[in-house]
């Protein structure tokens, strides 16, 4: 058992090291082979996990139990994954509805990121539901009183919207101009549908927990849960765009769309301040603010989430000097992303546990599959960027040397 955990720690350290090397423009010779071996190792263990999950059941590979029926795959992979893919609808609305066309250059990579994110979320859900072959039941067996029913429909419809929004990239590459024209005509209604669907299901993921007032810790349970999930997803989604642009600029040796990133950082900061204000107003109105000073696990995690994942990056991003610094912007954005992930973990895991008695400990295999999702998504993105017209051609100098990062070659 502990061998699995050592493997997970080694993989995490290796991936973090690779990211740091990229961020600091260091490219030691061993970087590529070590990263490749790590990814192959992760995918092998993820495959092993999947085989056992589909033969021996969820109990054989996960730490889930009747007291914690939703584990890491739902609470973190799906909830945080959906939240961090929110950049797609934010930028689509900015460009196509509000006509702020400066953001056009980052539209395609953002939509692509969101699309890949939703594909991974769909795969994660397929793996996590107990009876995967019945996944289509919500489509024909309606039960409109269930938030889960609404979320399922919205996620399926929004994935379709994202597929349509991503399709021009593929159609352009294949030279299907007629179809491309057809897609372009439908752009605005499709984008509007996407914004509505996103607003609905981002908030509804929070609404899933409205039904458990007696189980979810008072610092997180609130009638405003849907509002908090939506606001944090918007801020998190913006910061994902910053992080993704930073690394694709490093890997593809392009110039960073720095003015857009600086604006995104400032917008994220405003949204984070809004989140803080609503959050503390809510705690004050419900009289639960004193819970955060309780010296227990939940109180500590709440402070960590609020100070480290919301307040600190909000302050950092409101300084122009930090925003103008690529690595400063990156660090603050990573804090926001971590804050969103921690929030979803707090709601789905720590907040549902009674004090220090954690109702669930994930297994190394659950983490292996989660790392598998992250690496798979990253590599799919890089391959798409390499072979499809995702980034505008005019910006940056195209390098002839084979892309440093493409591991499959």
């Amino acid at each position, binding site marked *: 058992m502990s061998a699995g955990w050592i493997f997970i720690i080694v993989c995490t350290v290796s991936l973090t090291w690779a990211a740091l090397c990229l961020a600091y423009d260091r490219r030691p010779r061993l970087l590529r082979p070590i990263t490749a071996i790590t990814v192959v190792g992760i995918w092998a263990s993820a495959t092993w996990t999947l085989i056992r*999950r*589909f*033969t*021996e*059941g*969820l*109990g*054989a590979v996960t730490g*889930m*139990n*009747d*007291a914690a*029926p*939703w584990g890491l795959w739902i609470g973190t992979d799906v909830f945080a994954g959906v939240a961090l893919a929110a950049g797609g609808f934010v930028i689509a*609305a900015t460009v*196509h*509805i*509000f*006509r702020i066309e400066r953001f056009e250059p980052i539209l395609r990579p953002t939509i692509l990121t969101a699309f890949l994110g939703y594909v991974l979320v769909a795969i994660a859900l397929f793996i996590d*539901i*107990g*009876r*995967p*072959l*019945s*996944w289509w*039941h*919500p489509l024909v*067996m*309606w*039960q*409109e*009183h*269930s*938030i*889960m*029913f*609404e979320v*399922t429909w919205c996620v399926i419809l929004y994935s379709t919207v994202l597929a349509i929004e991503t399709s021009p990239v593929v159609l352009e590459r294949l030279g299907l101009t007629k179809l491309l024209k057809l897609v372009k005509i439908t752009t*605005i209604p499709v*984008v*509007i549908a996407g*914004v*509505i669907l996103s*607003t*609905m299901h981002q908030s*509804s993921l929070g*609404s*899933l927990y*409205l*039904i*458990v*007032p*007696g189980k979810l810790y008072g610092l997180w349970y609130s*009638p405003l849960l*849907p509002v908090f999930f939506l606001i944090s997803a918007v801020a998190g989604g913006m910061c994902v765009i910053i992080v993704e642009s930073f690394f694709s600029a490093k890997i593809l040796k392009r110039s960073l769309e720095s003015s857009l990133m600086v604006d995104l950082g400032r917008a994220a900061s405003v949204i984070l301040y809004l989140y803080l204000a609503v959050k503390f107003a809510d705690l004050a109105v419900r009289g639960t603010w004193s819970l955060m000073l309780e010296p227990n696990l939940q109180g500590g995690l709440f402070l960590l989430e609020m100070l480290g994942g919301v307040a600190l990056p909000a302050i950092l991003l409101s300084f122009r000097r930090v925003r103008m610094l690529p690595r400063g912007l990156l660090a603050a954005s990573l804090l926001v992303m971590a804050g969103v992930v921690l929030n979803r973990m707090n709601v789905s895991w720590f907040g549902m546990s009674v004090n220090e008695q954690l109702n669930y400990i994930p297994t190394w295999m659950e983490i292996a599959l989660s790392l598998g999702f992250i690496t798979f998504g990253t590599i799919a993105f890089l391959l798409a960027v390499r072979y499809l017209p995702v980034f505008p051609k005019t910006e940056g100098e195209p390098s002839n040397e084979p892309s440093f990062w493409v591991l499959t070659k």
Partner: protein
Amino acid sequence: MNKIQHTTELNAFNRRRFLQGLIGGTGLSVISPVGLRADSHTSAHTEAPSVLVDVTRCIGCRQCMRACKNANDLPDDTELSEGFPSSWDHQELRFDQWTVVNPVTGCNGDGYEVTRNVKMQCMQCLEPTCVSVCPVGALTKSELGPILYNADRCIGCRYCIMACPFDIPKFEWNSGMSPVVGKCQFCTRKRLAEGRLPACVESCPTGALKFGRREALLFEAHSRIKSHPDRYINHVYGEREAGGTAWLYMSDVPFENLGFKSDLETAPLPTLTWEVLSKIPIVAAAMAGLFGTVAWSLNRQEKDE
């Protein structure tokens, strides 16, 4: 003596009407779940087939556990199958064990530690949370009350397990592709349809379990409390908890000291999500109008320029 008393209760239930409702209910409920709204059927609430558990009368023989397993074709533990249980190990509800009786030690009203035997099973809420959260209608409330599970619809999302205020539904964690959710279904399909009592009630040798209409049982519970205020605490558990349940408990030890959940809301939980869900069409339409207008006007402005 007890068996006779129960049968008379059941007769008094007006059997024909009960059966008609039940058969109609199970048939209908597969198509459309009924009774999710708080105001939908108060008469069904008073008529609901219910069980009154008198904790002071339970001797912990676990005959009901055995009867439940036999009646529902669940695997029988060897420990439970031969006469009285050989040990008094703590038993947990499982997907294939729908009721348990455990000795629980807690402080009574006078501050003395006492041990009571507590039976647990699905409480059969009048406004069931599990039914409202199930995205596919695998859990349905039959017209007269009991909540039924249909594995053919279930997708295994486990939202019912997460949402149940009493932590009752359990999951089959060690099945690869077709796990089921397990919980007490009040012997509705087999026994009640034939006019027989739930297996646990029938097997109870001490009269700790009493079957009847909910209203009648509540009346009985309160009159027992009134005639023996020294023997019972003045609280019928299940009368108001989570909007009311068909299983009702009376006890001489405060319920929170016996491990019952004491901090439950008295309003039915499904309204918490319905308040949000019912507003979605309006919000979606408003957003469509707003964004449509913005996009259209900005687009035209651009063209004019």
